[in-house]
């Protein structure tokens, strides 16, 4: 059943992504100020949204794990965080490329990019923590606590870096002119958000299955040792 779901989500995501790619690259004209590179926003921004949504879901699942002690919640939290970290990396890399083309430098301390970098560091730490713990129940418990801490910090980080950037203005990666994009340019963005969310979901389902199998193997090993 789970496998069929994975195939279904992947299929829909692939179709949507293909259609979006077509629209982004073939249909839309070049942007007035930035030329062709602006198309990167259609991957840069949705990746950020998917990633942050993932971290939020991870926090919720971590809290649910601590309340119910059902290890399936732990699997979801781990899977979603991992996928979130990947999409955060996509955001960072596309941001870096964008910055290189626009500003000529490989990295720019744009407020949102900086915040995303901190998020990436936080959750890379989460993944490292999980690697360091062998026993599944302890791993679930400790990483759940970390996930809650991390997300509370995420909120504070985004706010504080915004304030920092208003006090020390710096480069801004955006193509919003006075608050909005030209009509017709905005919708592929939102379609791509959906597409990425679907890709993320199928990856999460896949990863969850992996976590479940890993736990099974761990339990079998313990049984074997007990004999």
């Amino acid at each position, binding site marked *: 059943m789970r496998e069929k779901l994975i195939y279904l989500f992947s299929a829909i995501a692939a179709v949507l992504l293909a259609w979006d790619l077509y629209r982004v690259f073939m249909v839309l004209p070049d942007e007035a100020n930035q030329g062709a590179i602006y198309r990167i926003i259609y991957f840069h921004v949705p990746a950020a949204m998917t990633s942050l949504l993932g971290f939020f879901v991870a926090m919720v699942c971590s809290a649910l794990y601590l309340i119910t*002690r059902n290890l399936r919640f732990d699997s979801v939290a781990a899977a979603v965080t991992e996928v979130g970290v990947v999409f955060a990396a996509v955001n960072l890399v596309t941001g870096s490329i964008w910055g290189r083309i626009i500003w000529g430098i490989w990295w720019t301390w744009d407020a949102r990019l900086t915040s995303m970098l901190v998020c990436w560091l936080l959750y890379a730490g989460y993944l490292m923590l999980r690697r360091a713990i062998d026993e*599944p*129940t302890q791993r679930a418990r400790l990483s759940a606590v970390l996930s809650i801490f991390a997300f509370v910090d995420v909120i504070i980080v985004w706010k504080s870096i915004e304030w920092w950037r208003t006090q020390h203005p710096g480069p801004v990666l955006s193509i919003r002119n006075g608050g909005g994009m030209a009509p017709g340019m905005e919708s592929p963005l939102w379609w791509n958000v959906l597409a990425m969310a679907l890709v993320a979901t199928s990856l999460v389902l896949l990863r969850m299955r992996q976590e479940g199998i890993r*736990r099974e193997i*761990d339990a079998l090993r*313990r049984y074997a*040792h007990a004999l």
Partner: protein
Amino acid sequence: MAASAALHAVDVHDIWKYYGDFPALRGIELTVERGACLALLGRNGAGKTTLLRIIAGLSRPGKGTIHVLGEDARNKLTRRRIGVLGHAIGVYEELSALENLRYFGRLYGVADPTRTAIEWLERTGLANVRDGLVREFSRGMRQRLAVARTFLHDPALLLLDEPFTALDDRAIAVLQSLLRQAQGEGRSIVMSTHQLREALELATDVALINRGKLAFRGPRTQGMLDDPAWLYRNYGEA
């Protein structure tokens, strides 16, 4: 349920403990009457230490309920009346014997920590090294200090994890006399052990855990004293 639970020293009901999907303890049902001394037997890895840690409030069970002295195991008033002696001595190397006991006395809310500490140093034969750092103590001295730490707050229930293992003769004698005295005073004791001889002498009850399940539970008989290995032969294998 609550009324009868209050009469028991320990009331374990359908306890399961999981490591991931692996059950280390499976549906343990166990009661220990007040004033009893239970010897908890079982092979290494059977689950004795896991169960003791849950009773001591050091870890949480996955399923089931546990009442110690009538209350939840993590209840502070309960823990004030429990003395725990684990595998390690649980005292600080860099502090003196007196400082260690005074510290734990304070944590356990003992009325006069210094006086009680000195009393117990005398009872365990450590009075003349009271200001010596634990780091410099011999093995036997450390073990006696650990025993002092366990008893100093006048616990109603004693939880001991393999207390006779690796003790020298003097420490064994001290511990045995303290345990006999405790029994005489009506305190309850649960001790896991491999040292069948010493434990069975003191025990009023016996339980055997095998692969996470309670394989045997009953009073200690003369037959067990004569042939301690009988239990393992009959209930120890799966």
